[in-house]
């Protein structure tokens, strides 16, 4: 059993849990995830690692309350325990000196971007973070990501905070600007990653996305998380979760992510207006 040390709910439907898991904390790296099971009858679901503290022996996960399991998880409080916490899984984010990196994030992606931006910054990159939210009351983690950024841009759909406009226009404007962007990393809802990848493509900026397909074991055993990247079928759990956004077969990924969406009930939050993705 793994104890929830701390819980934080920065905005509706987004929850942070700090979990006591010293062995996972010892090995966690930017870009990795864990598989969580709430109780012994629960599902195994992948959740992003937002942060870790090796001394304290804790790992912080962040999740969006969308389906049965995340709803169940959201009912727990500090001091409660979860049945299973497996990780760190997946390949760590690719960290090198690339030059100027645009870190584009929305929702829980903002905080999962933090360790990546931090590592990239330490590797000598210039970080431009672009954060998107529907509205000011949905924003969180801005200061945290900002603290590892050389430049920060926040855009909201309704203009309630900073600039008004869509992420796509903002990203395109950045790419058209004077500063050369060497790499883009995009983490957020699947359709946002899809459309942002389409924006960066004509500019030939290498674009990395962090995919979140349905998984079961998370160790390469079941193939449930298979995604098509270029001409190849990859398992997101062991070959990813980071892939080249220009090579991903997005329609397939979206269809596969919806396999169980009717069992899960309607996805109400962070649903984009183009499709049923979250």
């Amino acid at each position, binding site marked *: 059993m793994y104890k929830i040390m701390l819980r934080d709910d920065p905005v509706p439907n987004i929850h942070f849990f700090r979990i006591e898991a010293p*062995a*996972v904390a*010892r*090995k966690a790296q930017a870009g990795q995830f864990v598989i969580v*099971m*709430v109780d*012994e*009858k*629960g*599902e*195994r679901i992948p959740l992003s690692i937002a942060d870790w503290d090796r001394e304290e022996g804790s790992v912080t996960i962040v999740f969006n309350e969308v389906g*049965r*399991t995340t709803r*169940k998880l959201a009912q727990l409080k500090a001091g409660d325990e979860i*049945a*299973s*916490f*497996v*990780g*760190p*899984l997946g390949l760590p984010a690719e960290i090198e000196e690339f030059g100027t990196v645009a870190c584009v994030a929305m929702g829980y992606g903002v905080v999962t971007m933090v360790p990546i931006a931090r590592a990239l910054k330490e590797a000598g990159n210039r970080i431009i973070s672009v954060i998107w939210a529907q509205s000011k009351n949905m924003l969180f983690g801005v200061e945290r990501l900002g603290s590892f950024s050389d430049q920060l841009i926040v855009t909201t759909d309704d203009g309630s905070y900073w600039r008004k406009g869509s992420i796509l226009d903002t990203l395109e404007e950045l790419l058209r600007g004077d500063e050369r962007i060497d790499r883009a990393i995009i983490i957020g809802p699947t359709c946002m990653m899809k459309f942002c990848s389409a924006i960066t493509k004509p500019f030939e900026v290498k674009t990395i996305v962090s995919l979140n397909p349905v998984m*079961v*074991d998370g*160790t*390469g*055993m*079941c*193939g*449930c998380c*298979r995604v*098509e990247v270029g001409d190849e*079928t990859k398992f997101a759990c*062991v070959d990813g979760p980071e892939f080249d956004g220009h090579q991903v077969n997005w*329609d*397939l990924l979206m*269809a*596969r992510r*919806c*396999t*169980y969406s009717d*069992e899960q009930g309607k996805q109400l939050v962070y649903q984009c207006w183009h499709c049923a993705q979250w």
Partner: protein
Amino acid sequence: MPKVDLNRVSMPKQEPLVRARNFNEVALGYTAEQAMQEASRCIQCPKRPCVDGCPVEVDIPDFILAVREGNMPEAVKSLKSKNSLPGICGRVCPQETQCEAACSLSKKGAPIAIGRLERYVADWELGQGQMEKPQLAKPTGKRIAVVGSGPAGLTAAADLAKLGHEVTIFEALHTAGGVLMYGIPEFRMPKHVVQTEVDYVKYLGVEIRLDSVVGKIITVDELLENGYSAVFLGTGAGLPMFLNIPGENLNGVYSANEFLTRTNLMKAYLFPEYDTPLKLGRRVAVIGGGNVAMDSARCSLRLGAAEVYIVYRRSEVEMPARREEVENAQEEGIIFKYLTNPIQCLGNGRGLVAAMECIEMELGEPDASGRRRPIPKTGSEFIMEVDTVIVALGTTPNPLVPTTTQGLEVTNRGTVVADEETGQTRKLLVWAGGDVVTGAATVISAMGAGKRAAASIGATVGA
């Protein structure tokens, strides 16, 4: 000398049409009377060929004699001195090609039903509600790490514990048992039987660390640096193979591993009491002819599919599945399409598989495996309407451990190179056994490898 009795006592089973709709065990096991009757057929021949036929060398005539005499504690003791997992072996060992094939009465067509008797003894002990702890050697103070808690790992761990070593098993999943839990279905291998035998291994003093993916949370090299005198790799063959045909990533196309893991380990058949769902159509095609294909087909039926097909590219005689399992599947109403090979999966326009295009095959000359090679018949393509496809083509070892361990030699099939007799790998202080070395094989061969490796580890690290 009494006349040799050639009437093998059959084991009661659930009726086919009843069992095809439930997940309860198919074979019901011997009654005490049936067991004693079958045991009394054993002629106790002096050559004991059955013992040589057993990969873990169970003293078969001895435990059978004890059953005949009604001395069940002695039967348990004899059996468990060589085999820590008799409830498992009694159910899933291919006895017909091992001990029973070697039995002196086999020539007369009526070998002793050793597997059924083994199961009877194990189930008897389970019914007693308590386990006898065998004599353990004096603690050696040596720590041994075992990676994986499937048949190979559990056997190696049990034997090492009996030798007095302090054993820790690292298991990636949230439950111990490996393929016995995620792969083999409840109706063939009840999970409480597996867990009882896992408990027995713990009872011997073995610690099992769940949720621990070696290669991620800790590496083999770190285990050796952190006070473990030796490491045994029993990580199995967990990576599913696909056909690599168009449309294989459509929704409704599963690897057998995913399908069986959802069904067995995650208990999707008890959804929504258990949270893991499994989407299954009315018409299911299972690709492959091994035991995993049979398990997938029979699970599909039990999950409510209306029609279930086994699609196999060779003919019935080449099928690698156990005869008994093929017969069970046929009785339950699984439809076998032999000499048929899928070419592509076709979607319904909304991302879900709706049909499979197949081609008929004919058999040519024998290939490297000794079986006749299937050759496609040109122009014989046809469409099979199915809404679920389960790919059961076999598995290869998971590269997670090999790729994170310095100096471990791996073949081009992804299997770890290890000495057949001792299980020693090319890396010092690391042993391996079971499917990770052989590629997908049987539970008992993995147990045999675990046993041999434990002996070799014991001899190397010393007392």
